[in-house]
């Protein structure tokens, strides 16, 4: 076992590089996916059929085909058509397209979930459709879509593992190398699990932070938030005295 740890220590710089590749793929892929999701998701809520229908077709196509095949297509087929992309661009592109399609559906449904009265109030104030979306509808839809986007972000992180098939040395690839050099399958893959889990956990915390901010801006508390649960525990223990200090999520602290 100690041997394993010494070889892990020796291997750390390599694993660090792997983590770096995985993070770049995750963050760049997520950024690309978000841009695609906004464009396609907003198009799918359009009243113009010439926008809505093509967007719907693109979304269904990329949701309905495997990420791995999309990746292979970008990596092996595009060069046949004369477009040569480096492996990193292929990886980011495939992740962005695949998860962008999923996220587009989240964007679309969240926008349509915003109360009808909000759209009507915006029309009654003669706000232009663009203004209405940017100032009224999207900020409210944003708070609704974050939890689903967080789940997709974690899935995207885990999805990055497929890029090892196209010669990229990401975290999974490095873990595999660790396994080969230590000859201890249990140890190596457990280390892999833990690293992925820690990254996923950090991403989830960041998304929770975003969600708290978005809901606070709507003057609401996130349902079942951590502060709320902490407060409940404290009250249960019979020390409710300081709960005002926790009550910051709802805003300015000015009590009516």
């Amino acid at each position, binding site marked *: 076992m100690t041997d394993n740890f010494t070889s892990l220590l020796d291997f750390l710089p390599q694993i660090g590089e792997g983590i770096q590749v995985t993070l770049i793929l995750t963050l760049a892929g997520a950024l690309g996916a978000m841009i695609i999701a906004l464009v396609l998701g907003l198009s799918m809520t359009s009243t113009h059929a010439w926008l809505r229908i093509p967007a719907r077709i693109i979304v269904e196509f990329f949701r309905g085909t495997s990420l791995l095949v999309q990746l292979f297509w970008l990596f092996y087929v595009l060069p046949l058509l004369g477009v040569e992309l480096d492996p990193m661009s292929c990886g980011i592109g495939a992740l962005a397209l695949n998860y962008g399609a999923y996220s587009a559906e989240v964007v679309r449904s969240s926008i349509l979930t915003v109360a009808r009265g909000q759209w*009507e*109030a915006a029309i009654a*104030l003669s*706000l232009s459709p663009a203004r209405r979306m940017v100032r*009224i509808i999207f900020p*409210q839809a944003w708070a609704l879509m974050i939890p689903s986007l967080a789940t997709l972000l974690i899935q995207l992180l885990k999805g990055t593992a497929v890029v090892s098939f196209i010669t990229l040395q990401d975290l999974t690839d490095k873990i595999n190398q660790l396994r080969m050099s230590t000859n201890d399958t249990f140890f190596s893959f457990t280390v892999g699990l833990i690293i992925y889990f820690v990254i996923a956990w950090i991403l989830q915390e960041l998304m929770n932070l975003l969600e708290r901010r978005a809901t606070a801006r709507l*003057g609401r508390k996130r349902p079942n938030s951590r502060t709320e649960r902490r407060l409940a525990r404290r009250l249960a223990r019979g020390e409710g005295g300081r709960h005002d200090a926790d009550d910051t999520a709802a805003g300015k602290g000015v009590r009516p």
Partner: protein
Amino acid sequence: MPPTENIAPDPDGASSTEASASGASASGTSTPAIEFKDVEKRFGTTTVLKNLNFTISPGERVALIGPSGSGKTTILRLIMTLEELTDGYIFIDGQPLTHTERNGRRVELPSKTTRAMTTRIGMVFQQFNLFPNMTVLENVIEAPIHVLKKSKDQAVQEARELLDKVGLAEKADEHPSRLSGGQQQRVAIARALAMSPEVLLLDEVTSALDPELVGDVLAVLRTIAETTDITMLLVTHEMQFAREVSDRVMMFDGGQVLEEGPPNQIFGAPRHERTRTFLSSVQ
């Protein structure tokens, strides 16, 4: 063929078809503030309004009463362009709102033209519909800044005056969710007034409120009725209030005006049996 309304002569002979408008309103007394011409509204196969014709004079306060499903809220929603007209025309200040007649055909106006027309119309909803992602003040200044292109300083100053008028000056920086229903509705009234509308539509504005909060909202509306000359169209179940503020009451039944007249006549001596039964059911 591209739209040519900028050059084409106007068969209606109305002074201007385009609503970009001088902003300055209310010409002679002869032009009605609102005119419904052969209006028809269907939802699917249900006809809500049919062959509806009426006019409302500038500054007039008209209460629309009648059983639910009689089409009165639909009338407000058609004026605010929240519903699409199935047939017929609506004119605001003599200018077509959503459709116009050109060479004997009914043509839809460009959405920008319609939107320019709706800046003259304000609406207050049953459910308030304040924007929860903005403070009270931001709710009120949003449209004046971005639609009327007022400067921020001017919009803020006017908004604060309006909030003061509805008794909520000290709530300007609060989030709507921290206000009571009655306070939210008064903010919604201030928000509508901030656009200096010529026509104000009030859609059952007290129906969602707890009884003890109704009074404040009605007091604000009474002040507006007394101190401004805004044309007001109100759908309400507050018959006492309708009686107090309105110049004319229109009783609707089945998408038709059953009878209309000054409040004293409608409430005191209704001609139709249906009006009588309706009034006794709500009072």
